[in-house]
């Protein structure tokens, strides 16, 4: 089991009148190589779930085992290591560093992995060529279109070849054509063996995934396998 969360809660302002249960007793297991779409309305807790799965946030209660390791017992260096090597993030707002060029952004996770300069160059260019933005390597994020920025962000997520890709509304800020390309790319990565967790509010986007986990008010209300809409 690659990902295993049991009875996880994320509660803001617990015990006060303004208490918000972003996650309300969620249990979920994901196997290696799955393509899971987590679907829910805005405020349903789907992003919170992804943040916890990606070790960007900690649950209020509950256990989380990643690759058999209890996340609660890991220190900062080990958590950083997981975010660095196990997970590649793709965000709705790209989250590129504005002061760095496309190349430098993609290079960043490899630097934190202490990959040598020469190997780094190979891996960065490979990732950028794969998503079709290699010719933009010198540009800063502000000099690129949204689609190009998201491709750079994807290149950054896959540069270190992590086994898990987590994408939070990756097409949310893109036109439908570009959005389709991005989803197609995620399917390809999945075919090559990557585990994909896709967060979305859009059922048509969720249709690209083999498994759909529906979430509402912090609870999982449906978890089903489906026919894949191959792009």
């Amino acid at each position, binding site marked *: 089991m690659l990902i295993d969360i049991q009875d996880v809660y994320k509660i803001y302002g617990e015990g006060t009148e303004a208490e918000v249960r972003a996650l309300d007793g969620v249990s979920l297991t994901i196997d290696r190589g799955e393509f899971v779409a987590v679907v829910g309305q805005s405020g349903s807790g789907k992003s919170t779930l992804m943040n916890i799965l990606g070790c*960007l946030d900690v649950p209020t209660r509950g256990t989380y085992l990643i690759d058999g390791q209890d996340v609660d017992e890991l220190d900062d260096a080990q958590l*950083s290591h997981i975010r660095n090597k196990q997970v590649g993030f793709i965000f709705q707002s790209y989250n590129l560093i504005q002061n760095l060029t496309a190349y430098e952004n993609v290079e960043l996770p490899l630097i*934190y992995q202490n990959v040598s300069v020469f190997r780094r160059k190979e891996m960065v260019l490979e990732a950028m060529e794969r998503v079709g933005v290699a010719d933009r390597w010198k540009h800063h994020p502000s000099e690129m279109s949204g689609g190009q920025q998201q491709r750079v962000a994807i290149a950054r997520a896959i540069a270190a070849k992590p086994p898990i890709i987590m994408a939070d509304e990756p097409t949310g800020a893109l036109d439908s054509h570009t959005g389709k390309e991005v989803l197609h790319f995620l399917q390809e990565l999945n075919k090559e063996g990557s585990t994909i967790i896709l967060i979305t509010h859009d059922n048509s986007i969720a249709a690209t995934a083999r498994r759909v986990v529906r979430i509402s008010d912090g609870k999982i209300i449906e978890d089903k396998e489906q026919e894949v809409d191959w792009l």
Partner: protein
Amino acid sequence: MKLGQAMKMAFKSISGSKVRSFLTMLGIIIGVASVMAIVSVMMGMTKQSLSYYEKMGTNRLEVYAYLYNGNSVFDDLYDYCLHLDQYVLGATPAGNMGATVIYEDKNSDSMEYSPSLYFGSDQYSVVNNFQIEKGRDLSKIDVDNYSNVCVMGARAAQNFFDFTDPVGKEVRVNGLPFTVIGVYKEKDAENSGWSMDNMILFPYTAARNLGQNLDMSQVYVKCRDANSVKQAKAMIEGFLTGICGDPNDWQNQKGYFYTYSDNQWQEVQNEQATMMSLVLGGIAGISLLVGGIGIMNIMLVTVTERTREIGIRRAIGAQRKSIVAQFLIEAGTICGIGGIFGVALGTILTLIGGKLLLGGMILWPSMGITLGAVLFSVLLGVIFGMYPAIKASGLQPVVALRAD
């Protein structure tokens, strides 16, 4: 992550945000340069006025002391001053006498400018800033042996001997033969008539042989420096109180004394200088503070932007310590470069200030002030440059990512 990588990351970040880096540096440059220039010019002014007084006052202590029984206190005072050699360079009676000096057809009474005739100790030249040019100076032996010798100032020597060598020649003083043993170097060339060089010096012991009732009550004591004057003054006053009694006691039947030094004027001057340095130091401190606030502002304004950046870096795998190391190096580098430019600009301003305000004086900034100003602004820059890193790297990455 290795240190080299942290450094590369920091440099990339600096070159990637040139405006922020420049504004931070500007705060440091202005702060450091203005403090350096202000304090250095101020210190130059103080030094200049002090050296002016050193020339004028020449650290000389004037002592006036006598006993009601008519005995001289000079010999005792002279011996006492020998013990004070830590502070005192020499002591001599300060007085002149009336006599007629004749050499061949030259007569001091009939000269257009008669030479001043002084009696003194072997330390007369030290006290009065004369240097021997030909022959030799008065010695202790001359004084102890009542030798009939004299030393001439350059102008007097010229008046009596034209351009022939006076050393070894014999002059008659009130009819008694005196040998000229030396000539002093000219020190007052500007005045031709009543020149300080138009003088003849006799040992005070031999001067007594001339049947003169010499007034030995006035003594000049030459001290090493301004501080020595204070020390010597206090000690000599104590010593003289023992001999002459307390000059402020109206029932005192033994004698009387007082001491005086030009340095008392210097003290007033020093007080004014201290006052000025306080005022200007305050101005300098304020300008450093303003520069510091500028640095703080720039650093704090960018905190949000940088918090998000830190969130991104954390999300893709940066450890807390890598983030902190990067920001430390980044802030340190920006502030260090700012400091260097600040010192350069401050040096230029100081040199210009010396030229314009202190009459072309070559003025160099003081090490202490420079170091202090640089340390202060670099420290401030580093602390506030580190602030977002320390704050944001402690957050959950998702919280830092949400900053906008």
